[in-house]
Every structure is written in structure tokens, then in C-alpha cells.
């Protein structure tokens, strides 16, 4: 792999930018792999990378039905945080955040991870108390958390609607180490680094079925057709959040604690720097916003709240999100929207994911990310790779099992109970 560094940028500038090399190719699938990862989003690519890097498995394929990062990896609002309070989530997301902190160096690729702070606004004394509990628990677990009083908040984010009659801002709970990253760069960085370690990334290759032998999964059928359409593997990992149930049915896993829902996101025209954090208006409404390095305001809100595999959003939620935006940042009222889109997500029954072996030998599952999968990308890949390679979970994903629902150990961060659309 050609290393990127300041000197190569300088040299490229002086020599007409002719030094760039292709970073991943278009390999034909082989007849057999040690491990196949289904899904070429961030989680799948990260899994392949860590399998090759940390577990010495080099004969790996990542199968992607569309193109790299064309699913939720390229559709999210790029927020990275670890402000969780329940065991299972706390250690996993903090593990992931620590991997983010060194990811650009790890991949030799600038993923533009910016620890600009995640700011949870509070609007009532009871909300402040509930948040205090969360952020105190985080601190006890070694995760950073802080409180900004109204004075400090006004100094750092002057444009918020502080004197709103209905939603007076009483302060904010903050995770200073949280922030944003460039989502495409994360996918490309992992794809480049995985390719350099010998991973085959095969795009336009849809898994249409599974090959079973003596109760185990031993390969996949793909849309490549004929003999070339069948690819055998010792181990197969699914990282296809949004479409997990579709593939699980094909693999014989049956029903899962998942409903597929869609979530919209929005980006405005680029404007001058106005918001230097990730701001969340939660509790009363549901709205989160940050500003990309290009200047676009990137924001989102609630799910559309009915089962859907359509990657298109509906207008009532659109209106709701804009209304929430106007409540806390009315200064954006005249800013034009540039784009709006939707992605489909695995909404799990307790709002938390699973990274686990399955009851079918040879089949491993990474799913249930709800709408918080982006921040988990490195942690998910790292622990899923460990689970696949060692046949046992990493300490960070040991509680993210499928069996927890049966055992009554749900990891229900928001306390909404087994209603997928509410998480």
C-alpha cells in the first residue's frame, strides 16, 4: 500500500499529482474463502480489516450488493459518541470511541474525526436530573461527561433560542470527546487498508441464498450466476443492518427481534461556521444537528415509525424535524435545504445491537444497530472480527447477545420496552 503523508502530498503537488495509485480493484470472486463478510458498509469493511490485521486471516471476501458505503454508511448524520449508561452499551461504545481516536493513524487515512463535543440540551429540572444520573453513571464508568451551565452554553453556542417561552434552555450535558467524522472517508479508509492486507472487496454481488451442509452454513449463492455464483467459506458473517431479517430468513435463522424502519436525514446549503458541536434537542422533541466541514447543516430527527424497506422518507416527519429546528435554532429559518434522504435500519426490540455467534455453525451475526450504527463502526468491526476468529466474544461485545431477550437481560437504554419503533 502506498503510504500517505505530508511529503507525498508535497511531492504530488510538484509532479502534477501523478503519484496516486488505485486503492482497491474489482476482483473476481474465488471459489473458497476462509471468511466471507456479507455487507460492504462500514461495519463489514471494518470487520474484514480487523480480521486480516489482528487475527492473521487473509483469505477474506466482502460481498456488497450495491457499491461501497452506498447503504447506511453513506446515509447517516456522522455522529460519534459514547454517552451510554447501561452495561453492555457502556463498555462497547467507549471501546469504539477509543478506536476512533486513533483511526486516522491506524488506517493511514484521514477520516476527519473531530472531537467537537456532543451537547445534550436540557429544558426542565426533571430532565436535568435524569441527565445528571446518566452523565454521573458515565463518569463512574470512566467515560467523560460534563455540565455546561447557561452562561457557559451561551458563550460556546450563542445562536440557540435561550429565551423560548416553552423550551427555556437550562444548560446542557456534554461529552467533550464525542464529535463527528467524515462517513465516506471511514468506508474508503477501511476498504483501502483491508485491500492492502489481501481482502477481496466484491461490489455488485448480492447474496441470494446460503449453502447448507450437515446443519452448518458452508457458503453463499450470489447473483453472479452459474458455478461462479456459489462461493464457499468456512465462516460467514452478516453485517447488513436494515436487511438483516431478509438474509436471516434465507440462512434459516428464522425470526429475529428486529423491525426494519426508515430514518431520514437532511443537509442544508453550505453556510459560514455557526455550530461547532453536535447539538441535541431531546426529550420533548427529537432533533440533532451539526455542521459539516463543507458548511452544510447536517441534521435529523425521528423515525417515520412504520415498517419500511423503502429508502425514501415521508413528509410529516420532515415537517416535524424542521419545526424542532426552528424551536432551538430559529436563525436557520432562511437557510435552504440541499438534500434529504432516508436509510433503512434494524430497529431492535431493546434499542441495542447484537454481535454474536448464531445457533447455525459457521454463521455469525452483526445486526440491530437501530439508528446509531455509525459511531460503532470501528468497535463493531473490531469485536465482530474477534468473535468470528476466536468463536467467542471480545469483552466489549460479550453482553451484545441474541439470547439476552430470552433471558430477560434486555439492554434497554431508554426504557421503552419491546416496541421497536420507540427506540
Amino acid at each position: 500500500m502506498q503510504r500517505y503523508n505530508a511529503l507525498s502530498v508535497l511531492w504530488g503537488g510538484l509532479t502534477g499529482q501523478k503519484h496516486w495509485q488505485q486503492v482497491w480493484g474489482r476482483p473476481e470472486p474465488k471459489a473458497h474463502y476462509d471468511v466471507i463478510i456479507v455487507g460492504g458498509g462500514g461495519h463489514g469493511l471494518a470487520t474484514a480489516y480487523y480480521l486480516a490485521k489482528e487475527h492473521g486471516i487473509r483469505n477474506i471476501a466482502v460481498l456488497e450488493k450495491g457499491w461501497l458505503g452506498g447503504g447506511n454508511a453513506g446515509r447517516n448524520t456522522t455522529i460519534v459518541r459514547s454517552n451510554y449508561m447501561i452495561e453492555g452499551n457502556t463498555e462497547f461504545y467507549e471501546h469504539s470511541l477509543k478506536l476512533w481516536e486513533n483511526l486516522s493513524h491506524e488506517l493511514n487515512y484521514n477520516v476527519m474525526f473531530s472531537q467537537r463535543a456532543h451537547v445534550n440540551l436540557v429544558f426542565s429540572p426533571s430532565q436535568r436530573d435524569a441527565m445528571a444520573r446518566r452523565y454521573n453513571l458515565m463518569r463512574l464508568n470512566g467515560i467523560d461527561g460534563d455540565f455546561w451551565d447557561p452562561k457557559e452554553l451561551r458563550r460556546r453556542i450563542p445562536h440557540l433560542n435561550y429565551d423560548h417561552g416553552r423550551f427555556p434552555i437550562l444548560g446542557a450535558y456534554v461529552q467533550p470527546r464525542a464529535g463527528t467524522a467524515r462517513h465516506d472517508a471511514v468506508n474508503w479508509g477501511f476498504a483501502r487498508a483491508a485491500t492492502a492486507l489481501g481482502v477481496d472487496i466484491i461490489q455488485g454481488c448480492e447474496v441470494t441464498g446460503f449453502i447448507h451442509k450437515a446443519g452448518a452454513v458452508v457458503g453463499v449463492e450470489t447473483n453472479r450466476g452459474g458455478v461462479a455464483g456459489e462461493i464457499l467459506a468456512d465462516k460467514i458473517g452478516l453485517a447488513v443492518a436494515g436487511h438483516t431479517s431478509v438474509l436471516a430468513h434465507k440462512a434459516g435463522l428464522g425470526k429475529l427481534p428486529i423491525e426494519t424502519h426508515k430514518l431520514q436525514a437532511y443537509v442544508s446549503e453550505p453556510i459560514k461556521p455557526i455550530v461547532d458541536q453536535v447539538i441535541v434537542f431531546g426529550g420533548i422533541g427529537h432533533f440533532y444537528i451539526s455542521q459539516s466541514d463543507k458548511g452544510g447543516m447536517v441534521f435529523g430527527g425521528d423515525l417515520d415509525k412504520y415498517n419500511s424497506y423503502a429508502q425514501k422518507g415521508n413528509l410529516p416527519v420532515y415537517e416535524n424535524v424542521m419545526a424542532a429546528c426552528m424551536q432551538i435554532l430559529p436563525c436557520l429559518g432562511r437557510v435552504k435545504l440541499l438534500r434529504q434522504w432516508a436509510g433503512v435500519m434494524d430497529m431492535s426490540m431493546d434499542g441495542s445491537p447484537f454481535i454474536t455467534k448464531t445457533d447455525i455453525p459457521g454463521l455469525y451475526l452483526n445486526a440491530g444497530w437501530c439508528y446509531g450504527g455509525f459511531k460503532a463502526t470501528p468497535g463493531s468491526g473490531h469485536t465482530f472480527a474477534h468473535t468470528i476468529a476466536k468463536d467467542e466474544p471480545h469483552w466489549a461485545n460479550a453482553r451484545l447477545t441474541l439470547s439476552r431477550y430470552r433471558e430477560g437481560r434486555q439492554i434497554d437504554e431508554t426504557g421503552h420496552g419491546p416496541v421497536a419503533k420507540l427506540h
Partner: protein
Amino acid sequence: MLRIPCPFCGTRDHTEFSYEGDATVVYPALDALEEEWFEAVFLRENLRGPHSEVWHHLYGCRSFLIVERDTLTHEIGGVRLAHQPTAEALMQGGTK
């Protein structure tokens, strides 16, 4: 906007309704085995394509309706009352 043809109120925006999920889930008897309860509470077919689901016409006639809707295209097929005895009573000329 989804437009749901309510048998009582006519075709209305889906924002008048509350979505209650998969209509094929059957809740077991209270003393049924834990396994049956586990399946009813937590596991879902989560189909991509035709899907039977319950919508509650919360801001209308407050009826629970079973709507046949495609989860990929959002196309709505049939709509019927979820509560069978009520449907039968109405068929027989109303609730006296």
C-alpha cells in the same frame, strides 16, 4: 404521506393513525410457556414486501384496523377491522 382507506371515515392521512405493528402476532394464553411469550413479544417476521399490520385510527373513529401494506413500495391493499366480533356485529346491522 400514506393514505389509508378507513372503512368508517374514508381515506385519511396516516398521521391520523398510530402504527401498532405486525398484525400476525398472536399473543398466547397468560399461562402459556415462556417460549411462546418470548416469541410473541420479541420476534418478528419483518417482511420485505406484503405485510399485514395494525393501524389505530387514533384521531378518527379510534378503530383498530388491519392494513395490508407493501413495506417496499408502501402500496396499500385491503383494510379491515381488527376486532372480529365488532366486524360481525356491524355486518348484522349495527350494535343494538
